[in-house]
């Protein structure tokens, strides 16, 4: 019943989105009935897609394997929490998530603007409805083209008795939240994009569209940033290669819109305050949204290799078509409106906040551009030379590091300057204290650490110290001014500074968080100690300052998860003193595609890393046991099981009984492997890393997210009124004098 209801609602959602688009276009002829009708159709679309999501989730919870999506991505043994999040591990489920979030965000922005921007809203509604038509249509396209894997309610007949289960790699809390965060970020950038298109069409290119969609852009940026951070945390803890960022195509695809979106969030302030950069702003939001679509495309098309991609699929073509329409259509619209986009003012001085914002914008866009080039290099090289070549982390590190260095410096410079201009004398007074702190930090680091051996890292630490000192000084000056006014203590003054100007100080908090994050990236990548060692129980290896002893093996079986785990206990000492006991392990899962005991070792395996973390650094280990000594036993077990099944199971026996009999035999064989592993432990390859300051990457990220939330949070209505009244009274006095 639920799958049928979901399918019906999806069909109705497609028709409703089409109606919303048509009514919105009719509303552009200044007929408010149609505009209101289109808005309500968007609400109806959100309700219908919510029913679709609920129906799919109920199918997961009910283990309804007649739904292909459930059979392919869940099983009776999948924990309930992961059943609920399994939806977005699939192609069709993530498309449904895209459309659902779009309908909710679209409803939200149309509710917020129902009595405003009457010229813009019908066009923006038409754009949002057009996107909803595309994504609901793409899902329904799966009915006509089964290979597309895009219809979430596709059925299997007969239904299998058991599902394949969730991909082991995705059984991690960060992975449960990471995809919806990324998709929400991608989708929410559709809101400012839609209003930018509306502003271009109607030639209403003042800052009204920016004011109405600023919060949506900030929320999108926050979701995308949080998704990227969670993805890096998952990579660090689950993938077993020892890093948090591998410059993978899909990782890059999420970083590019975040970078361009960051540029957009800065440059719209220049338009709001100074009426400048109008062409740049509409271009940035078009680029951001096109890159969001590109991120969606990369995950689904299978065009570039990535551990995050869903594999080759038919939905890549239509998505590429949508990207082409967005880019070409928007570019044509911008070119046709260049006369109206001309700014009211010019930058008065290079020593001004708007000038620094422009430089910061160029740096961010340059970063996105070089990452784009590196990501698509395999396709570019194939098109030009006929052979596919890819660039790896060394290319990305070499081209992004110089840009990132200057960017960090500018996170400190921007907040120090005022809008319009700052005189040279005042600039000197503002700049010398953080510059002195930065130089002192560089001198100390050069003297007490080996930072001089990595000059680029030392430069980054210096620039980050400048940024942090500048931001701290900025807050201190504001708190002092507030204290002088209200006569309270510093803590209360800081609280009031944030409460009075959430946008500015929320933004500064984001800058501080990112400066900390960059320090962590530089320290953990430049000063990492990494070693691959092969050990047998009792053997010791030296890795940097540490002595790592493989104390004993461990092995366990989880029948519910169909998982065999081989682990190790490592005793780690530093300078002869006990430092940590680490327990890395490697998980092997029963395979859905390969039968027998061998299937455990031919399917996907995951790593549980052993870590001892702290503010100074993180000792990280992962292991890969050498399974060759177990090979004979695995082969022998499978041969015996096959013989026994043939002998015991007579012709005509129920397939279920045969399967159960086989499963019991395989269980016993796996138990035998576990005992053999403990009795005669094979050698194990360990990767042992010491990553200095790495934890600060996520601490800095969390600070940045907190700052973003402060910037989004609206000032209390009562205080806004009071401030407005004060200014109105002042202005009235001025008016009286004028």
């Amino acid at each position, binding site marked *: 019943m639920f799958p049928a209801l979901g399918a019906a609602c999806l069909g109705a959602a497609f028709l409703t989105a089409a109606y919303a688009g048509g009514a919105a276009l009719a509303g552009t002829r200044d007929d408010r009935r149609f505009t209101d009708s289109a808005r309500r159709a968007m609400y109806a679309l959100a309700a219908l897609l919510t029913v679709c999501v609920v129906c799919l989730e109920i199918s997961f919870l009910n283990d309804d394997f007649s739904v292909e999506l459930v059979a392919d991505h869940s099983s009776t043994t999948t924990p309930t929490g992961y059943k609920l999040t399994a939806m977005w591990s699939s192609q069709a489920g993530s498309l449904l998530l895209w459309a659902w979030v779009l309908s909710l965000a679209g409803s939200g922005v149309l509710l917020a603007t129902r009595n405003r921007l009457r010229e813009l809203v019908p066009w923006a509604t038409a754009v949002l409805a057009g996107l909803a038509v595309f994504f609901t249509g793409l899902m329904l396209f799966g009915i006509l083209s089964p290979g597309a894997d895009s219809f979430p309610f596709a059925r299997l007949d007969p239904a299998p008795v058991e599902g394949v289960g969730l991909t082991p790699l995705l059984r991690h809390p960060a992975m449960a939240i990471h995809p919806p965060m990324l998709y929400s970020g991608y989708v929410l950038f559709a809101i400012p994009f839609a209003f930018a298109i509306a502003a271009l069409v109607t030639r209403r290119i003042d800052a009204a569209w920016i004011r109405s969609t600023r919060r949506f852009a900030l929320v999108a940026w926050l979701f995308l940033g949080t998704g990227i951070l969670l993805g890096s945390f998952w990579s660090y803890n689950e993938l077993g290669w020892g890093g948090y960022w591998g410059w993978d195509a899909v990782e890059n695809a999420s970083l590019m819109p975040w970078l361009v979106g960051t540029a957009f969030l800065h440059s719209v302030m220049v338009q709001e305050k100074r009426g400048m950069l109008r062409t740049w702003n509409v271009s940035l939001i078009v680029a951001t949204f096109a890159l969001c679509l590109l991120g969606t495309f990369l995950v689904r098309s299978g065009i570039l290799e990535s551990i995050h991609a869903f594999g080759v699929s038919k939905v890549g073509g239509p998505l590429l078509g949508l990207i082409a329409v967005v880019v070409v259509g928007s570019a044509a619209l911008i070119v046709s409106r260049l006369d109206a986009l001309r700014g009211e003012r010019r930058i008065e001085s290079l020593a001004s906040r708007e000038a620094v914002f422009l430089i910061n914008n160029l740096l961010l866009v340059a970063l996105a551009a070089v990452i784009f080039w590196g990501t698509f290099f395999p396709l570019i090289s194939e098109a030009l030379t006929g052979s596919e070549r890819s660039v790896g982390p060394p290319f990305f590190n070499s081209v992004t590091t110089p840009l990132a260095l200057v960017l960090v410096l500018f996170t400190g410079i921007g907040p120090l300057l005022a809008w319009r201009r700052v005189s040279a004398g005042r600039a000197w007074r503002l700049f010398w204290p953080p510059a002195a702190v930065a130089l002192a930090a560089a001198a100390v680091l050069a003297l007490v650490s080996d930072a001089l051996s990595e000059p680029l890292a030392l430069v980054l630490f210096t620039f980050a110290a400048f940024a942090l000192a500048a931001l701290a000084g900025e807050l201190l000056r504001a708190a002092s001014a507030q204290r002088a006014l209200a006569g309270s203590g510093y803590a209360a003054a800081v609280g009031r500074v944030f409460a009075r*100007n959430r*946008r500015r100080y929320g933004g500064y908090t984001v800058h501080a968080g990112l400066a900390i994050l960059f320090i962590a990236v530089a320290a953990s990548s430049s000063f990492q100690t990494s070693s691959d060692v092969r050990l047998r129980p009792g053997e010791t290896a030296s890795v940097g300052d540490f002595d790592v002893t493989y104390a004993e093996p461990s092995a366990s079986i989880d029948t519910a998860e169909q998982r065999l785990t081989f682990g190790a206990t490592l005793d780690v000492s530093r300078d002869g003193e006990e430092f940590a006991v680490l327990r890395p392990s490697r998980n092997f899962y029963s395979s859905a595609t390969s039968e027998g005991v061998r299937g455990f070792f031919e399917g996907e395996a995951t790593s549980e890393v052993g870590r001892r973390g702290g503010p100074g650094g993180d000792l990280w280990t992962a292991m890969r046991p050498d399974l060759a000594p177990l090979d004979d036993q695995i082969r022998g077990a499978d041969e015996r099981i096959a013989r026994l099944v043939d002998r015991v199971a007579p012709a005509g026996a129920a397939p279920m009984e045969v399967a159960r009999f086989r499963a019991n035999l395989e269980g016993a064989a796996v138990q035998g492997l576990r005992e053999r592993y403990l009795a005669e432990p094979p050698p194990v390859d360990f990767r042992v890393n010491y990553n200095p300051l790495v934890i600060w990457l996520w601490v800095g990220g969390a600070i940045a997210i907190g700052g973003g939330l402060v910037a989004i949070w609206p000032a209390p209505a009562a205080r806004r009124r009071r401030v407005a009244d004060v*200014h109105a009274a002042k202005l009235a006095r001025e*008016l009286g004098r004028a």
Partner: protein
Amino acid sequence: MTAPLRGAPPRDDGEDPRLGELEARKEAKYREIRDAELDHAQGKLSDADWRAADAELRAEAIEILAEIDGAERARSRS
């Protein structure tokens, strides 16, 4: 949602869409004035620069307030 299909007359809630936009512009202008005050208090702007910027911003704010007055008068007349 089906109002235009049923031929229902347009809804008139008495709201002037211009008023909402003007209020938003006013809020943004006040924020700019406060930002300039803060920059001046923190020593980023000289007295002369601040006075010039403040006067310009206030003049723009007064224009917006006058537009709001006009829109409100037009609404009360209708």
